[in-house]
C-alpha cells in the first residue's frame, strides 16, 4: 500500500507492523467489520417486520393464519437457532433454484434429485454459472440476511405477541365502544401502546442479534471470523510477512470489538432498568434509596 512497504523483508519493529497491518488482505479484514454492521442494520428492521407479521398472524381470528403465526413464534423455543441457520441457507438456495427451474425449463425431463445430487437446468442456476465473483458473494450475503431475518423475526414475534397481549383489554374495549372498527382499534390503540411493553424484550433481542453475527462465518460469508482465522494462521517465510500462529491476538481483537458493541447497548438497558426499579420495595430499590440519601 505504501511505497516504504515495497520490500517487507528489510523492515523491522514498528515499520514492519505498520506495513503488515495495511496489506491488502488486512484492508479486506477491516472492510469485513462493515459487513457485520451492514448485516445488523439490514436485519434489524427486516426481522422486526417479520416479527410484526408473525405476531399479527398469531392474533388473527382466521384459524389457519393463527396456526401459522403460532407455529412461527414457537419454532425458536425448542430448537437451537444454529440448526435454522444451517438449514435455511441450503433450503432457500434450493427452493429458489427449483422455482426458477420450473419457470425457465418447462421441457426438462430429468429428475432434479438424482441420487445424491441436486441438479437444475443451467438457466436456473443462481447466480448464473458465468457471473462475476462479486455476484456469488452478494448472493451468499443476501441468503444470510434472509436467514437471519427469518430466525430473528421469530424471536421478535415472540416479544411483540407478548407485548400485544399485555396491553390492557379495557383500552381495546373502550375503542370498540367508541365505534372503532377492529382495524382502527389495532392502529390507533393497540400498536401505539404496545411499544412500551415491547421495549425491554426488543433491546434484549438487539443484544442477542449482535452476538449472533459471528455465525455469518458458518453461512459461508467472508466475515471477520473468516479473516481472523485466515490472517492469524502461522505464515512461513514463503509469505511476505512471516509470523507464528497469531490467531489468539486476532480473536482477542474480535472479543474487544464485541465487548464494546454490547457495552454500549448495555448502558442503554441499564438506564431502563434503573427507571423500572425506582421506588420498588426490593433490595435494588433500597440501594437506590440509600444512594439518594
Amino acid at each position, binding site marked *: 500500500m505504501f511505497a516504504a512497504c515495497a520490500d517487507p523483508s528489510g523492515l523491522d519493529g514498528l515499520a514492519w507492523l505498520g506495513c503488515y497491518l495495511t496489506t491488502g488482505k488486512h484492508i479486506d479484514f477491516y472492510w469485513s467489520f462493515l459487513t457485520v454492521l451492514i448485516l445488523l442494520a439490514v436485519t434489524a428492521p427486516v426481522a422486526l417486520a417479520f416479527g410484526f407479521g408473525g405476531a399479527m398472524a398469531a392474533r388473527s381470528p382466521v384459524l389457519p393464519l393463527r396456526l401459522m403465526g403460532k407455529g412461527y413464534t414457537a419454532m425458536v423455543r425448542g430448537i437451537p437457532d444454529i440448526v435454522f441457520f444451517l438449514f435455511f441457507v441450503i433450503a432457500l438456495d434450493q427452493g429458489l433454484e427449483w422455482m426458477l427451474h420450473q419457470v425457465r425449463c418447462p421441457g426438462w425431463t430429468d429428475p432434479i434429485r438424482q441420487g445424491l445430487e441436486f441438479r437444475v437446468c443451467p438457466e436456473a442456476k443462481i447466480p448464473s454459472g458465468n457471473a462475476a465473483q462479486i455476484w456469488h458473494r452478494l448472493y451468499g450475503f443476501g441468503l444470510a440476511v434472509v436467514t437471519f431475518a427469518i430466525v430473528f423475526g421469530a424471536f421478535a414475534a415472540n416479544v411483540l405477541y407478548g407485548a400485544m397481549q399485555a396491553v390492557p383489554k379495557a383500552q381495546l374495549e373502550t375503542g370498540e365502544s367508541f365505534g372503532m372498527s377492529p382495524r382502527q382499534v389495532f392502529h390507533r390503540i393497540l400498536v401505539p401502546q404496545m411499544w412500551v411493553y415491547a421495549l425491554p424484550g426488543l433491546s434484549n433481542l438487539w443484544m442477542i442479534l449482535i452476538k449472533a453475527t459471528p455465525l455469518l462465518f458458518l453461512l459461508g460469508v467472508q466475515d471477520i471470523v473468516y479473516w481472523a482465522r485466515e490472517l492469524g494462521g502461522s505464515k512461513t517465510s514463503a509469505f511476505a510477512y512471516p509470523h507464528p500462529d497469531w490467531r489468539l491476538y486476532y*480473536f482477542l481483537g474480535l472479543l474487544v470489538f*464485541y465487548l464494546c458493541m454490547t457495552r454500549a447497548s448495555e448502558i442503554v438497558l441499564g438506564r431502563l432498568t434503573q427507571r423500572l426499579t425506582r421506588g420498588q420495595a426490593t433490595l435494588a430499590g433500597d440501594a437506590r434509596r440509600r444512594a439518594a440519601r
Partner: protein
Amino acid sequence: MSCLQIIGDYAFRSLGYGERLLPRSDFTLCHQVTLIGSGLIWNIYFGALALIAGFFLANAVALARASGRFWLRKPAEWFIFVFRGSPLFIQFFLFYEVFVLLPKAGFDIPLGLITLTVETDWLTRAWAGALIVLFLNTAAYSAEIFFGALQSVPRGDIEAADAFGLSGWARFRRVLWPTMLRLAWPAYTNEAIFLFHATTLVFFSGFPAFQQRGDALYYANYFADKTFNPFIPYPIVAVYFILLTLLLTLVFGRVNARLNRHLPSNIRPRIRLRAQLIR
C-alpha cells in the same frame, strides 16, 4: 442391512464404539436417525456437566457481585461482563487458541525433590476444552440471573428474618438463598434450555471432531453435505432437541414445584419458555 443392525453399528459411534467408517452412500432414514441420536450423547454430556458445575460457580459469582467489598465485586462484574458481552462462538475460538498455544509437553512444576509435570494436551480436545468454555459461559449467565433474583428478594422477607434473630450465614441459608432460587428458577430454566442449544456450536468453532466423533448437529451437517438434502437431517435434529427441551422443562418444573411447595398451587409461579438467551 436391517435397521437393528444399523443401530447396533452406529448407536455409540460418537463415543468411538461400533463401526469405524461413517456411511458413505445409501443413506437410509435409519442411518440418519441413529447417527444423529448417537451425536446427541455429546450434547447431553456438555449440557449436563456444564450446568451442574456452573450452578455452584454461578452462586459464588452472584454473591461476589452483590458483595459490598470492591475487590470481590469488581472481578465478578468483569467475569460476567466478558462472558455475557461476547459471542460464545468467539469464546470457543479464543479458548481453543489459548489451549493450542500451551506447551504440548506440559508444564514442569518443581516441588523440591520431585518435579510435577502437568499435561496440557487434553485441553485441546473438545470433551475437556469445550466443556470448560461452556462451564464458564453458563456460570456467567446464571450468575447474572441469580444476582438479579438476589436484588429482588422482598424487603419483608429480610425484615422477618431480622425479627427472628437470624443473621449472617443462617439468614442467608434459610431466607435469602431459598427465596433467590425461587425467584430465579423460571429464568434459570430458560438458561438451561439455551445452554443445551448452545452445545451444538462446539464442533463448528475450532474444536476438531476427533475421528469424526461429533455431536448431533455435526452428523446432521455431514448428511446434509453428502446428500445435498437438508430436509431430512435437520428436522431430525429439531425433533431430538424438542424432546430434550420438553424433558428439561419437565425436570425443572418438578424442582420449581418443590421450591414453591409452601404456596397454594394456583399462585405458584409457572415456568414460561421465553427465547431470551442465546449466545
